[in-house]
């Protein structure tokens, strides 16, 4: 049983690390601000959740698991809010997504 939990924790941690790396690579290489926001979402949801679940499995039923759960819930609530604020601020200032057709832009910007 102990070995099963260890292997599961290792798998969760490995998957989470790979997700974090993919998200970071997207932030580095994607061409446009809005596509980079999309890549950052992978880090904040898949990577963070999987890594924290792996650590929870390593910690067992202790206070540490509760704290990890709090970190997970807090970031799952605040990260979309911060991303929405970023996208809203960028769009208000006038940054437009790459490759939007001319007729899909707002009326006054054509």
């Amino acid at each position, binding site marked *: 049983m102990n070995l099963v939990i260890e292997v599961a924790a290792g798998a969760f941690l490995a998957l989470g690390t790979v997700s974090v790396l993919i998200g970071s690579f997207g932030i580095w290489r994607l061409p446009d601000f809005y596509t980079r926001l999309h890549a950052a979402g992978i880090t904040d949801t898949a990577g963070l959740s999987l*890594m*924290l679940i792996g650590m929870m499995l390593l910690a067992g039923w202790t206070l540490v698991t509760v704290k990890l759960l709090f970190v997970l819930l807090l970031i799952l609530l605040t*990260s979309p809010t911060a991303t929405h604020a970023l996208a809203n601020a960028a769009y208000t200032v006038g940054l437009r997504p790459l490759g939007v057709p001319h007729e899909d832009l707002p009326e006054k910007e054509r």
Partner: protein
Amino acid sequence: MMIAAATVGLLVAMLIVLIRAIAGPSLYDRALAVNSFGTKIVLLIAAMGFLTGRPEFLDIALLYALVNFIGTIAMLKFFRYRHLGVASTPKDKAEGAR
């Protein structure tokens, strides 16, 4: 062992995001990179707690997650309104009641 590998992966990811934070063409790219960097720091603090056998580090991770969120929102607010006080809405400006 697994935690050490995860820590190394996190450090590499942080390095990659730091490139975007330095090179990012617009202000919002930098803000996004710093926000993502903060999320990775939270994970790194938690992993370091497990690595050194002191999971009490998680309190610091929780606090860092809060500060990261508030900092991002404050930075965006500052760059839109150029001060951190009470922001005047466009309606206020139209009425001249600033």
